[in-house]
């Protein structure tokens, strides 16, 4: 069906653009009937492929580009795509996207629209989207964006024919991004200064320049437009001041918000076939009221599974039997046989021996606990409860006056505080980043530590557990609240897509747990050994008793703990779970009564971040902030512990 009128239009070149690995080259092949290397690795198309569109009326030139995540490039490949867009100002853009991942697709659509590009949208990988039970309504998208949207399964040539059919309707997409007022002002000033030859692309170019696209700036200065580039730099610096933040982040944030709004509009038309029960349960789990008992139930299961099964049964077996009765005695016998020197025997099998302490702690105590915790965490992830937890925590944060975005780093902190500290980069202002970094370091136990803590709680009473939980939570809320008084929280939206509740697959959970366990062994065991080595060196040189003695006024006097607990706090600097493991063993050996156990747990939870976290704090927040926060946290942790000890003894509670 060739309409003569469209020939003239479609004869303009066609530019295939999209995220990496979404099938651009397959579509290129289909449109040009030419074979291009296609592979399952991203970045396959490093060079630009051109062909004549044999499958399209008028046989226009078709250009394939490398995948890009953003048009404000962060890598050479991405720059190639952006440069192509500028080099072919008249080309019609065929944006190819992954139907499974609309958010990313639309993020690029927004940027293309800002460049004023005539485009259509091809949602490829429809087969995979169907497998996942996603049903994206192209009609809804067309209506919202006002451009042609076509669904394809390119590898099987399904739907590809519709691309040439709809090309004539290509237009610039209708998307509304509302940037903060200072950004808008800078954009309009800058785009007026850009050469008129850029036409409708000027808004997009101005945004790229304001986001600090050095490459583009270089290119434009080469074209002799130095005055405008000076203006761009000045405007950018002005924005940085006005926003108190990098313009790039503000721009990206506004785009994300616009995409989220688009998604909401489109997903109204999205139906998932879910059982009534799952649908109801899913809704209840984020209900402001009913969500709370469900959360409590989840925590109770964690406690039973990790604290009772993992820490009780498994540790008893591995630590008590395997290590206690077989491995450690055997190692001791071997050491006695082979090593005539007392210090060398101590190095391996002494009180601070690499085997009897380092390996025993990491493999016999922490591993079973962390392993069960990983299983539990995997189930939380795969069931789709985790994002719901984020929504629940978000409510708590709102009442604390904190930005809802802080939720993600905090929930992540349960996995690894170090990773979470890195994630605080997504927070919009420096002040918020500082507060969340503090809260993470202060009161969010990482997975390994949480596991060991649950283990200790497992052998105290429920009252003890509740006291621990209440103290930690209260401390977090109080510190967070106080901090947010200093730091006015901007009420920016917390956007997370909530997946349906699913029944996790056993196989996937097991594999995940295996992956995490392997990771734990690689990351943690070396540090456990290092910590043991340090303790051993301190003991051999006679410094350890001195240190213990020096810390007695605090550890024994204020916290009411046995002097040996100081060792645990010492190694807690290296890894939080190592410190917790030391306390756990003290408790198992009957050296801690229940009050002492709760007090020491509160202290180790609030206690300093591990060494990795500390380094990341320095890197992300600067040495001054990192040291200041640590200097606050240590005495603060001991103070809270001391206060709790005093209260519990005062009311002589029976735990």
């Amino acid at each position, binding site marked *: 069906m060739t309409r003569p009128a469209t020939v003239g239009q479609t004869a303009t070149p066609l530019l295939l653009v999209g995220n990496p*690995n979404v099938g651009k080259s397959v579509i290129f092949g289909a449109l040009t009937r030419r074979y291009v290397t296609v592979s399952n690795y991203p970045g396959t198309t490093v060079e630009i492929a051109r062909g004549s569109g044999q499958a399209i009326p008028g046989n226009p030139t078709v250009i394939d580009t490398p995948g890009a995540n953003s048009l404000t490039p962060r890598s050479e490949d991405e720059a190639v795509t952006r440069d192509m867009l500028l080099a072919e100002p008249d080309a019609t853009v065929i944006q190819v996207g992954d139907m499974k991942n609309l958010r990313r697709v639309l993020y690029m659509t927004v940027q293309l629209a800002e460049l004023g590009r005539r485009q259509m949208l091809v949602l490829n990988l429809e087969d995979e989207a169907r497998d996942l039970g996603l049903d994206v309504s192209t009609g809804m998208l067309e209506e919202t964006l006002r451009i042609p949207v076509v669904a394809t399964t390119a590898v099987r040539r399904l739907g590809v024919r519709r691309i040439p059919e709809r090309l004539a309707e290509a237009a610039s997409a209708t998307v509304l991004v509302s940037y903060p007022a200072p950004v808008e002002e800078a954009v309009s000033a800058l785009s007026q200064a850009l050469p008129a030859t850029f036409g409708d692309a000027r808004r997009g170019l101005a945004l790229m320049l304001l986001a600090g696209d050095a490459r583009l700036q270089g290119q434009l200065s080469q074209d002799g437009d130095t005055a405008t580039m000076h203006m761009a730099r000045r405007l950018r610096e002005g924005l940085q001041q006005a926003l108190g933040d990098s313009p790039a982040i503000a721009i990206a944030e506004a785009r994300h918000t616009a995409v989220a709004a688009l998604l909401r509009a489109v997903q109204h038309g999205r139906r998932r076939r879910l059982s009534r029960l799952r649908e109801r349960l899913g809704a209840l789990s984020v209900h402001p009221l009913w969500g709370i008992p469900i959360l409590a139930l989840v925590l109770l299961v964690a406690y039973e599974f990790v604290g009772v099964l993992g820490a009780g049964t498994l540790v008893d077996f591995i630590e008590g039997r395997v290590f206690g009765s077989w491995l450690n005695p055997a190692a001791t016998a071997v050491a006695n046989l082979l090593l005539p020197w007392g210090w060398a025997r101590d190095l391996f099998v002494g009180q601070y021996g690499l085997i009897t302490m380092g390996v025993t702690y990491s493999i016999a105590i922490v591993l079973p606990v962390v392993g069960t915790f990983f299983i539990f965490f995997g189930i939380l992830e795969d069931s789709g409860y985790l994002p719901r937890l984020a929504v629940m925590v978000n409510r708590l944060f709102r009442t604390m006056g904190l930005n809802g975005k802080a939720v993600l780093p905090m929930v*992540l902190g349960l996995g690894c505080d170090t990773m979470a500290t890195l994630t605080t*980069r997504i927070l919009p202002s420096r002040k918020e980043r500082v507060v969340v970094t503090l809260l993470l370091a202060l009161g969010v136990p990482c997975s390994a530590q949480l596991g060991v803590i649950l283990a200790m709680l497992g052998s105290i009473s429920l009252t003890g557990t509740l006291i621990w939980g209440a103290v930690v939570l209260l401390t977090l809320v109080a510190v967070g609240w106080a901090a947010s008084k200093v730091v006015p929280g901007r009420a920016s939206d917390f956007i997370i897509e909530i997946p349906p509740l699913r029944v996790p697959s056993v196989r996937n959970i097991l594999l995940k747990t295996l992956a995490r366990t392997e990771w734990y062994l690689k990351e943690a065991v070396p540090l456990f050994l290092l910590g043991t080595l340090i303790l051993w060196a301190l003991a051999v040189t006679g410094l350890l008793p001195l240190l213990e003695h020096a810390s007695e006024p605090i550890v024994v006097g204020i916290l009411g703990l046995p002097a040996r607990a100081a060792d645990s706090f010492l190694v807690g600097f290296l890894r939080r779970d190592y410190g917790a493991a030391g306390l756990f063993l003290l408790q198992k050996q009957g050296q801690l009564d229940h009050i002492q156990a709760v007090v020491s747990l509160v202290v180790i939870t609030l206690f300093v971040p591990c060494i990795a976290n500390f380094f990341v704090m320095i890197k992300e927040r600067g040495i001054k902030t990192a040291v200041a926060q640590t200097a606050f946290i240590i005495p603060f942790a001991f103070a809270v512990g001391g206060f709790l000890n005093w209260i519990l003894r005062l009311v002589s509670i029976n735990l």
Partner: protein
Amino acid sequence: MTVTVQCPLCGARFVGQESCPTGCPMAGGCHSYCCPSCHYRFVEESRLVNWLRRVMKGNQA
């Protein structure tokens, strides 16, 4: 080798190579993926796990 992975938090699929800020001092970035759409970080699967995954898939089919 690069693989497509799915974020356990928000469900986005992305290419395993691309990641958000790295810089964990542990073991050079501590072998984790970072979801580009929600920034969730999770543990990268090792060759052993990938192999097992394939073997188990093979058995199922």
